[in-house]
């Protein structure tokens, strides 16, 4: 059942996670991830037939509140944190390749 993770899969996952690796780094990470994945596969020994998964341990259901916008008056402070700003907006490079 061991589903050893391949270098190609690691490259695909890296792409999904918006990370890039050199070929050498990819080798290194693949080795480490294989070891960690093998560790996690130990869970296969546990019989979980019919066991309800737990995604959160809070007893809270949901804290509902009125759907009213609150103004935190932080636009200027927030814009100051942006790596680049222009005309009161956050500036980013062109979304379509080839444009400037």
């Amino acid at each position, binding site marked *: 059942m061991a589903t050893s993770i391949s270098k190609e899969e690691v490259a695909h996952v890296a792409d999904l996670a918006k*990370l890039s690796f050199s070929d050498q780094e990819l080798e290194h*990470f693949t080795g480490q991830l294989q070891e960690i994945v093998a560790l996690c596969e130990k869970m296969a*020994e546990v019989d979980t037939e019919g066991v309800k998964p737990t995604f959160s*341990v809070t007893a809270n259901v949901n804290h509902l509140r009125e759907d009213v916008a609150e103004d935190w008056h932080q636009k200027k402070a927030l814009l100051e944190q942006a790596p680049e700003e222009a005309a009161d907006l956050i500036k980013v490079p062109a979304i379509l390749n080839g444009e400037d």
Partner: protein
Amino acid sequence: MAFNYFDTNLDDLHEALQSGKVTAEQLTKDTFANIAATDADLQAFIRLHEEEALAQARDIDEKGDFSNPLAGIPMAMKDNIATNGLETTGASHILEGFKPVYDAAVTTKLNEAGAVVVGKANMDEFAMGGSTETSYYKKTKNAWDYTKVPGGSSGGSAAAVAAGQVPYALGSDTGGSIRQPAAFNGIVGMKPTYGRVSRFGLFAMASSLDQIGPLTRTVKDNALVMNAIAGFDKRDSTSAELEVPDFTAKLGESIKGMKIAVPEEYFQEGIATEVATQVKAAIAQLEAMGAQVDQVSLPHTQYGVAAYYVLMASEASSNLQRYDGIRYGFRSPEAKSLEEVYKDTRTDGFGDEVKRRIMLGTYSLSAGAYDAFFKKAAQVRTLIIDDFNKVFENYDLIVGPTTPTQPYGIGEEIDDPKAMYLGDVLTIPVNLAGLPGLSINAGFNGGMPIGLQMIGKPFDEATIYQAAYAFEQENRFFEQHPAVAD
């Protein structure tokens, strides 16, 4: 310096401030002088906020209201807890220069109490690691031996308290990040019940596990800080709408008749002999003090690490998507297109351990792996919770070691992530079940401390404090302190 945090607890400091024996400004100045003398070696702080701290201290002196037990007393904040206008980075390159535009809930509460934040304590990058070696900025040393790691991820917080730089610090604990460094530095660290302390303003790692808690030299100090930071907050949807008790209320009460469970799995293979020996002696002491001690079983303990790493990494991979170089922090200067902004920023901005966890999480959530990893881990989590629930039907407290080993050397485990992950085997189940857990010094071996872990029922931190205080008063290990510059 006038005040030595080794010999003064929060009550002493409070009394000195209230009676005018010392001003908040003087105490803060002395604290910075001591940090300047010790931190070149210890490296507990990423940055200090001296100007702001002195301004805060002077403000408190002017107002003259020292009624709050924390008023005018300096403290250290872990670098993943937001402070308005003061750089906070999670020890990551990707947030270098980032100044939050609001305070974390705990920051607000401490400000209201009159606390003086002296600076940001070092940590593993985004709280990912067990040795504080994954910090982008520096490597903190263990307060007892500068060749050894301080533990992590709240390693800077723990070392700063143990070395007497500050009387208390805040940390965060997702899989042991308060308790393990507390154990490695011989101090008291509490991970409160999930929901007890608001995480608003805490840089999220794994949201179903993260909690903020105090690191202190004594149990009473710890309870006093908990009194200040606990409580409902509508801005954290997991925050519990429960009344906050006085956490010091049961200090000094006898533990006679207290029912204590000792899981046999916490002493199995992988646990160092010297740790097991010291912790067993501590448990025998609790029994001699009148507690009823029995051995119990938490049969799924050995699967905790696997379930944790899948769930934590999955949640973290999702939480860390927000770091994309667009709105704040670091943006790769080479990026020409939007795609490059994302990829180059994240590739240059994150360290290896963060990348490993993002990768593991992204993989665990991918279509082919979801059932065998993410869903399976969530089911194993249920079984671990059921194990605890069964024991707590008959017992007040679960006690065992905090860590399987004593502190190891700097650089020894950093290239072996699997070994590092297995070091969390005894603290992880507590996070998975959302329970409160505390580590207290159980004594020394070879000059290095060993942690005793106490795990309580949900929202029953008070009973943990009661037992920890009884143990502490019997031994008074806190009177010993590391040989740092006086």
